[in-house]
């Protein structure tokens, strides 16, 4: 019915903490297009994480409509949403992304297993790690890797089954600029090569520099939506 990857229309989200109600999103509209490398920015508490959680089918809006790949999220059951996350979405979180008792390779393989991929999990996971130049980390556990290495493995895990949309909530928040740069370059290449769509929330100017589009939130609403031309974005990546 529409060509947008994701359509968020008039969405509100309220949190009730005892007697206090927080209106985290207050009638938000956003369309995400295939191939976007989209940074969602805004001050702390403006609703970035809440928005990503709604798009990622991790939480349910209080009102409004969200359609993702043409499916009406609001009409999905808890199980259907889990299924959608598993098959079509990739997640990179701010921290504690990886299962601590599994090696990098096992972490990546685990997602394939969750998805019910039967044969060739090892090869697929290994080639994904190698494509991202993470081959030598394959047998390390999270506590044997730096924060930047962990985040890159988390990206490998998020994209191993080629999801159409990758959501990343402040992926560089705990990284220094060198590691942030490496992470962004890696994701940008995935987008350029495979046409994957990335949506970040961030405070990080570096992320904004790499983004093709920047959406600014304030008090649960979109206050600006800027599309940079491809040249700009590529230029700042170098």
């Amino acid at each position, binding site marked *: 019915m529409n060509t947008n990857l994701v359509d968020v229309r008039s969405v509100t989200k309220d949190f009730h903490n005892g007697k206090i109600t927080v209106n985290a999103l207050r009638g938000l509209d956003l369309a995400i297009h295939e191939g976007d490398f989209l940074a969602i920015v805004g001050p702390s508490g403006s609703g970035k994480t809440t928005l990503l*959680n709604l798009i*990622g089918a*991790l*939480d349910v809006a209080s009102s409004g409509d969200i359609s993702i790949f043409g499916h009406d999220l609001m009409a999905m059951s808890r199980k259907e949403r*889990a*299924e959608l*996350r*598993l*098959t079509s979405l990739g*997640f990179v*979180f701010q921290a*504690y*992304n990886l*299962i*601590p*008792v*599994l090696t990098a390779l*096992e972490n990546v*393989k*685990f*997602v394939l*297993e*969750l*998805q019910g991929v039967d044969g060739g999990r090892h090869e697929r996971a290994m080639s994904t790690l190698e494509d991202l130049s993470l081959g030598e980390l394959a047998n390390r556990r999270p506590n044997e890797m730096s924060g930047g290495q962990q985040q890159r493995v988390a990206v490998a895990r998020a994209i191993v089954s080629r999801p159409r949309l990758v959501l990343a909530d402040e992926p560089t928040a705990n990284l220094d600029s060198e590691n942030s740069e490496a992470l962004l370059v890696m994701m940008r290449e995935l987008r350029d090569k495979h046409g994957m769509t990335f949506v970040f929330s961030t405070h990080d100017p570096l992320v904004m520099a790499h983004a093709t589009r920047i959406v600014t939130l304030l008090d649960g609403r979109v206050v600006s939506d800027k599309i940079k031309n491809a040249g700009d974005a590529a230029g700042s990546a170098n």
Partner: protein
Amino acid sequence: MVSVSTFRIAWRNLGRNLKRTLLVAGAIAIGQFAFLGTSALMHGYGEQFFNSATGPMLGHAQVHAYDWRDDRSMDLTLDDIDALLADIRSDPNVTNASARIYAPVMAALTEDGFMGVVVGVDPVTESHKAGLLPVDGMGELLGEHRVMVGAGFAERHDLKPGMEIAVIGQDTDGSIASDLYIVQDVMWSAVEIIHGLGIVMSLDDAQELLMMPGRAHEIVIHTSDRELIDETVVRLSQLPSLADLEILSWDELAPFVVTMATMVDWFAYIVLIVVFIAAAASVANTMLMSTFERTHEFGMLLSLGCSPSRLSVMIAIEAAILGLLGVAIGTAAGVVFVAATSESGLNYAALGGSDEYEVAFQGMQFSLLIYPRIYAKDIVIAVSAILATSLMAVVWPIMRIVRLRPVEAMRS
């Protein structure tokens, strides 16, 4: 189906807080050891108790004329003993059958008379470990008017080997019966009636004295295995030659022994219950702590699309491994303990500070040496019970995880 990686994650999670894991496994191990140790001692005690109870006096089963046990009247005899014994011995489970005669008598050394009981026994068939003549060569001391007297009896009446005693009683017709006998030896026996009153003579001598050729009062039967007693008794009771006789197994003859054996079993089960409560508490506590600590991680896994049921299985496996680890260590320790003591026995008396090895009670002889026994059944019961308790202990943590919403878990 539980996947390899679910199992791997569960296993490695136990290594994350190794100290805590070992503490809990150790606690379960100690509990399991306590249970196995207790039940091994109880089984050893029960076996010993059984052997003592059924030992020289009771046997595994007994045959009498009806009413003999109540009346103890001389004339309530078993007739044609040889044919009867032959019938009984033809049963494949019967390892020993011995006829006995009991007769209250007066005995006299000089002019003073005193009470005694003539016990007529078959010198050949009573000469076995569970018979009335357990010491090698004892049987050869009897016959031809040679008798043995109980140690207590001998001491009370100053009887010494070589002395001649007169024995005066009543035969089966009620006439006076009397004869002279040589005290061949003094015998030690835990059987009270022999120790305190016994004039033990050969069955032939007793039959001659009491005018009861080919007859006796009792046949004591031993079978090859404790488990075979009941079926053997049933089969023997169907023999035509036993049609008018009473045949009873040891547990019918001495019901209090059964009661004691049952109490012994209960004691082990009480220990088992205590062990399980302790195991459940420690597993539950550990799993609750470790799942609380990992709330964020569970949120991440749920976010990826991992199902709550898979997480639950992971937690359940973790608890099961924890329980089984403890139970395995405890079982190993228990088996080692039993292996080390089952041959030589544990000396209860020494634990109590005395060195008497035997005590006697109501005609039964009790050794204070216990030979611990472990039965496969105990291990199976304990392992399944600890497994079940461990799994029950994670019901609460699992209920919490199933209700967990990924977003909230991630925020914590």
